[in-house]
């Protein structure tokens, strides 16, 4: 059964179906979108269940010629890393769609189509095994997100969405040059035959043989790195993120933080590092330094943010810093920590954005200064918020802790200074998160809240349904991280072997 194509096509079919529904049937459109998102989710769970944990390499591979002249294929397949990302994507997508039922009342049809097309692109990126196909999915992600922020976003949405698009495009177009140059180098090395020139597995094998010249590696790596670093986003390419997050509708922020940032990290792990190991080693130290700067800077800037969403956005910069730190430490523990951190960040930050959305729905405001004492009127909300805050701060027993801990362990072996510097940030993280929570939840009910009176109802059923799976997964992965780590065992070996090429040679 071509399960991967099924997962990609399900949201696409849903989007096409919605396109022909009359636009005044908002209710029907919402339910159709949710149904197809849930269907894609079920398929992804089937994939997870059918996936064999042990063997290295890709499973469920499907390959069809697309443009034979240049050896470009429709080729998809998954390893443990991709499977995790696919499940994360499908989970967050249906949650986001459900969370949009009430807030999105205007142009529902376009919104749901955008969301489902977005899902197609995101899943495609995680399963593509042809560089060209990967690039196409990568760009497909851009357009719906541009619309989601630009049409359904906040007051300053036009500026934010254009900034998001231009940043991403500059990176991705240079990435296209790098992909073509890489394929051409492969073609030149194979007597002018384009067969396999865009095939990830063929290219990875060729790279493993050390066949890519060092100067090509340097240039191609820099181009890919720029594209991915903008997406992650790494310091100093992060400035689009706070704007995009602040202006995006709640569900847009959830997907942006939960999946879109992971696309960048995934690209680094899957493409930039294994294909160009020499360059990855050359630039490892500068990138590690940038990661640590991002971790510290993100945390410090978070402390002073006056806006709930902006605070969570900057905390993303800090948290994603652990991911890039883990990737470029080149050790098993750090690699697994990085991937775990990607998932945790998706779950936790996704939850935090949902919770910020809840308060925004009721008050149409996000400034922390106006808030206070919400625990008195919305006790369930305050409890759930507190749970996600603690998870984000890295409380042991919840999933956030395990990922960051593994990155510490991995990077300590490489450079204790860096590990120590990053641990200090844990204190900063606790500071900005708990302080924010304290201002929001405790003390006297603020004047602003009192003025709203009856509007401050506690979480309703839909909101609980969207938050529950995230909370559940945070606990489960916190207690049993081996569920994920088992899946990552084979990819870890492959990754380290790919990086080892340059160490030995």
């Amino acid at each position, binding site marked *: 059964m071509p399960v991967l194509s099924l997962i990609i096509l399900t949201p696409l079919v849903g989007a096409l179906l919605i396109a022909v529904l009359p636009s005044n049937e908002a209710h029907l459109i919402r339910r159709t979108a949710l149904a197809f998102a849930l269907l894609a989710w079920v398929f992804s769970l089937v994939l997870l269940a059918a996936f064999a944990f042990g063997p290295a390499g890709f499973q469920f591979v499907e390959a069809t010629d697309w*443009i034979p002249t240049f050896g470009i294929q429709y080729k998809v397949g998954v390893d443990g890393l991709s499977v995790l990302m696919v499940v994360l994507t499908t989970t967050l997508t249906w949650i986001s769609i459900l969370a949009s039922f009430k807030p999105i009342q205007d142009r529902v049809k376009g919104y749901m189509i955008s969301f489902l097309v977005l899902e197609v692109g995101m899943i495609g990126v995680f399963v593509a095994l042809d560089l060209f196909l990967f690039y196409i999915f990568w760009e497909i992600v851009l357009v719906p997100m541009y619309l989601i922020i630009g049409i359904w976003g906040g007051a300053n*949405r036009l500026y934010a*969405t254009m900034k998001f698009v*231009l940043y991403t495009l500059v990176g991705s*177009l240079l990435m296209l040059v790098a992909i073509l140059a890489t394929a051409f180098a492969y073609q030149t090395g194979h007597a002018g035959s384009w067969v396999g020139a865009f095939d990830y597995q063929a290219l990875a094998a060729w790279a493993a043989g050390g066949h890519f010249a060092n100067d090509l590696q340097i240039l191609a790596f820099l181009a890919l790195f720029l594209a991915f670093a903008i997406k992650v986003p790494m310091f100093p390419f992060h400035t689009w993120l706070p704007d995009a997050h602040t202006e995006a509708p709640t569900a847009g922020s959830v997907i942006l933080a939960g999946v879109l940032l992971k696309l960048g990290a995934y690209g680094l792990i899957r493409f930039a590092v294994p294909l160009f190991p020499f360059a990855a080693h050359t630039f490892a130290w500068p990138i590690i330094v940038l990661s640590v700067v991002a971790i510290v800077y993100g945390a410090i800037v978070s402390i002073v943010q006056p806006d709930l969403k902006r605070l969570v956005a900057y905390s993303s910069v800090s948290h994603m810093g652990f991911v890039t730190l883990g990737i470029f430490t080149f050790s098993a523990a750090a690699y697994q920590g990085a991937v775990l951190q990607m998932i945790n960040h998706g779950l936790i930050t996704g939850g935090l954005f949902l919770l910020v959305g809840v308060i925004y729905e009721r008050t149409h405001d996000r400034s922390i200064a106006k808030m206070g004492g919400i625990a008195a009127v919305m006790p369930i909300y305050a409890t759930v918020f507190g749970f996600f805050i603690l998870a984000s701060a890295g409380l042991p027993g919840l999933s956030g802790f395990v990922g960051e801990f593994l990155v510490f362990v991995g990077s300590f072996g490489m450079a204790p200074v860096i590990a120590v510097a990053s641990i200090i940030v844990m204190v900063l993280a606790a500071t900005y998160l708990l302080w924010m929570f304290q201002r929001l939840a405790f003390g006297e009910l603020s004047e602003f809240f009192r003025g709203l009176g009856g509007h401050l109802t506690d979480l309703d059923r839909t909101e609980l349904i969207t938050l529950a799976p995230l909370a559940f997964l945070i606990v489960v992965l916190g207690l049993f991280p081996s569920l994920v780590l088992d899946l990552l065992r084979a990819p870890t070996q492959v990754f380290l072997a790919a990086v080892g090429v340059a160490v030995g040679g």
Partner: protein
Amino acid sequence: MSWADLGTIAPVVVAVLVAAAILIVDMILPGRRNAILVTALGGLGVVAVVLLAQAGHSGEAFGGAYSLDNLTVFLDFLFVSIAILTLLFAVDYLESRGLPIAEFAAILIFAVTGAMLIAASTDLLLLFVALELMVLPGYMLVGFARRDPYSTEGAIKYFLLGSFSSAILLFGLAYVWGITGTTRVDGVAAALAKVVAGGPLSPGLAMGLAFMSAGVAFKMAAVPFHYWTPDAYQGSPTPVTAYLSVGPKVGAFAIVLRLFAEALGPLKADWLPIVIVLAAATMTLGNLVAITQDNVKRMLAYSSIAHTGYILVGLAAYAGGQQSGLSAILFYGAAYTFMNMGAFAIVTALQRRPGVSSQISTFAGLGRRDPWLGALMAIFLLSLTGIPPLAGFWAKAYVILAAIQAGGWLTALAVLAMVNAAAAAFYYLRVVTYMYMRDPAGEAEPTSPGMLFRAGLAVTCVATLIFGLFPAIVTAATSAANALHV
């Protein structure tokens, strides 16, 4: 001339007959719109059928001055499509302004006949005559709205600079003739190959090359020879602008293929630096100025200059030793034709009623008040930006790939092209932003394009999607490029 010659040049003959028939029909049945349209569209359909019959064949007429090969057929198809689409988009616009349709159709088809003749020219003199046949009706089309001072101004600018550049080109051709002693393309190539083998270029040949480059650069609106473009484009009736942005441009690149790639092929190394500089300047300046435009027609005019720059990257790649650069040029020309005509068509649709400007504010809220037009415009603009999986993306990808294969300075040119493409996203998406994310200032007139117009939009949209989803269509461009004796 023999009967066989007549068969070879049949598409051009039929096109001329169609143009003449339109004028006759207009004389017999004055003011009968439908009769004229049936003659024009039906006639162009016949040309297309003749082309279909010629596909895959090759031959020559008039002792080798006119060549029928895959390149001729490919470009002729493109030119006929351009003529048909222009007509489909023009009817509503012309009618509402009281402009005559018969003259428009006849002039347009004469212009396209010239373009078709360029595609087939393997003789420098025929090339020049064909070029003039293409551009002279063009001047008339620009000034077609006689009572509109902008239209007249654009026509005069276009005419003065156009005839000036034609003279320069002819001057350059004369030098080449003087040095090689022949006007036949293959003869010129053979003679030049000997000249190149003999040492550095003579001053005469260098001057000839410079004049020809300048003349062709004028025609394709490459920087710094682009000054006529924005005024001519903005002043023209919008359907004419749509035609100008693709017809003469593809025609100019047909000259480039026949003249530079084929005849001047041996001098590749000498004109490579010229093309690199032209390409870099053209795309960068075109984009930078397009960013500042508030008028969509003018923005599309400057962006068409930028696209000329991208196409020139393909030519540079060819000069750098990559044959694939030529097929990239052809694919780009085809993809650009459909997506750009589509974009102009939407502008035309909004201007169906006289008096509506093409300011960007006209587009505010279009996505809401006319979802179909909005969605189509978004597709065309995204394609022009180069977002996959649309036609414009593959056009850029092929050009870039050819440049990367050529290596050296061309890799830097490829990077510059991509940076430019990112900058272009700003002004293309700005229109999308207006359509979907801003509310109109006042109540806008509903746009209800006629059936012909819808058919044209469907064709451009389907082509933009098909070229994107099945880019293997490039094989047609490849076989067309292979027809060149280079």
